[in-house]
Structure formats: C-alpha cells, structure tokens
C-alpha cells in the first residue's frame, strides 16, 4: 500500500507516453498527452496525503485538526485548469494542420515534407 499510489501515477504516465508515441492521429495524441498530464496530479496528491487527515479547509473543523498537505493541492489545482487551456492550444494547432495538409496522421505528415 505504501508505494501503490506512486506506482499507479507512474503507470498512467508511461501509458500516456506510449499512446503519444504510437498514435496515428494527432487528436488522439493530444488526448494521450492529457492522460500523461493527469499522472502528475495523482503523484502530487499522493505525496501530500496524510493518513487520518481531513481536507485542509477550516470552515467546519477547528484549527489544530490533522489535515493533508495543502501546498501540493494548490500546485495541482491551478495546473488542472491551465493544462486544459494548453490542450486547447494544441487542438487548435491540430485544426490548422488538418486545414493545411488535409491529414492528421503524423506518419503521413512526415512523408509530406518530402
């Protein structure tokens, strides 16, 4: 149990990387990148977890209660939203590629450079 959450984060990262490298469709590749990205959130929150701790919000618990680490949560929180806008930028690039070359298959695009 003590390393399982880390191992799962590693697995998600490697799976996303594998999909990214073997993808035959740029839209699919962007999806795989967002999978790989989500592994970082799992890892961060797993590092910050404290057994028996509650959420680090003191609106209904008294100060002094054991809570989990808020720093890693803050890191993951902003990146979830910012990451989505970066995904949007990548998808916009895919749309441009499709318009210019009529294909979104990386192998075909590589041949086109000729």
């Amino acid at each position, binding site marked *: 149990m003590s390393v399982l959450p880390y191992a799962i984060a590693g*697995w998600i990262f490697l*799976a996303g990387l594998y999909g990214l490298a073997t993808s035959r469709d740029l839209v699919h590749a962007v*999806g*795989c990148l967002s999978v790989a990205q*989500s592994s970082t959130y799992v890892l961060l929150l797993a590092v910050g*977890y404290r057994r028996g701790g*509650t959420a680090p919000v003191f609106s209904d618990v008294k100060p002094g209660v054991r809570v989990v680490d808020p720093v890693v949560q803050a890191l993951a929180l902003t990146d979830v939203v910012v990451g*989505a806008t970066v995904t949007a930028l990548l998808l916009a690039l895919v749309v441009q590629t499709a318009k210019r070359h*009529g294909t979104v298959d990386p192998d075909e695009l590589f041949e086109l450079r000729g």
Partner: protein
Amino acid sequence: MDDVLVTASLLFVAAAATAAVFNRDPARQAVVLSLLGLGLAVAFTVLQAPDVGLSQLGVGSALTPLMILLTVRKVRKVRRTEKGAGSGPGSGGGKRRR
C-alpha cells in the same frame, strides 16, 4: 476503510487511463477521457483534495472531452470538403502539396 477507497478509486483511474490510451478513435477516446476525468475527481476527493476534485470535475469530464469532440468534427469536415474540392474546378485544389 480510507485505504480501501483510495486503492479502489486509483485502480479505476489507472484502468480508465489505459482504456483512454488504447482507444484509437478520438471520438471514443473523448468519452473515455470524460470517464477518466470523473474518476480522477472522485479519487482526489477521497485523497482529501476537494479543491482539486472540483476543478478536475469541470475540466476533465466536460471541457477537455468537448473540445476534443469539436476538433474531431472540424477535422472530419475539412477532410470531406478537401475530397469534394479535389474534383471540383477552381476550388483551390486539394493537392497543392508535393
């Protein structure tokens, strides 16, 4: 009890992530990604991170899959008009590239 919930939700996330990678059709992948987003939101909440779970819920289960689906639709449309334009006269030509 907490450990069981954490393990179960993380295993679900791992399975959904694997399924998202191996679904080669982007439209289907978008649906699996939305499932992954939902799973991640639950896992984050179980890990006592409701703040992150809330933003993951909006972004992962709605925003990203929607943008992927819209991109798929646009790419298919571009391909269709290209195929049509290749045969039609004076349409800019679908085969400008080498």
